[in-house]
């Protein structure tokens, strides 16, 4: 399956610093939440990929 590798096409300001559930091909947002547990409960067993979006203007050093 070909996956969308550029999430800037589908994510916008409302998704920043949130957990976002994407379709397996990463072309569409299925849902989003501040809490992964809440989002997982909402999505159930649907096949999705969960990503955590970055907050804006923050530099990370791990």
């Amino acid at each position: 399956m070909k996956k969308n590798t550029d999430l800037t096409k589908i994510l916008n300001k409302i998704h920043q610093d949130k957990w976002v559930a994407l379709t397996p091909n990463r072309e569409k947002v299925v849902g989003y939440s501040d809490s992964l547990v809440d989002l997982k409960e909402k999505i159930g067993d649907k096949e999705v990929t969960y990503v955590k979006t970055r907050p804006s203007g923050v530099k990370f050093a791990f």
Partner: protein
Amino acid sequence: MNWKEFPYSRSLDFKNGGYVYTPSLEIEIINGSRKFSTDAIIDSGSDCTMMSGEVAQVLGIDFSKCEKDPDIKGILGASSEGFIANIKIKVEKFEDEPLDVKVTFIPGLNTPVLLGQNDFFQHFQVLFNKKKNIFKLSSD
């Protein structure tokens, strides 16, 4: 050597404008019958593989049954407590090579997964090419 290529993932910086590029890829995390797919950052500076406490919750990992790692430090010196568990991961494009990983789960970690020296870099050779915003992995 058989290299597989990945683009850096691109996100928008709404505050400052422009893009932020991160060397990350998709992994499937497996704990018994529970599975969870998410993006993981390849972090050569991490001693071990780390995951957020929220990921542990959805995987059904009970911290009271985990070995504790009492002193996880970030670059600014702040110390956190971690909880160690053994799980399996499948890395995108290497799905036929599931990897047993000793993970330190850290409550409050603000990114889902950091793939560190143990056990990710022990299994994969990694080539970063920031100029082209790509990286390559090989398990040869």
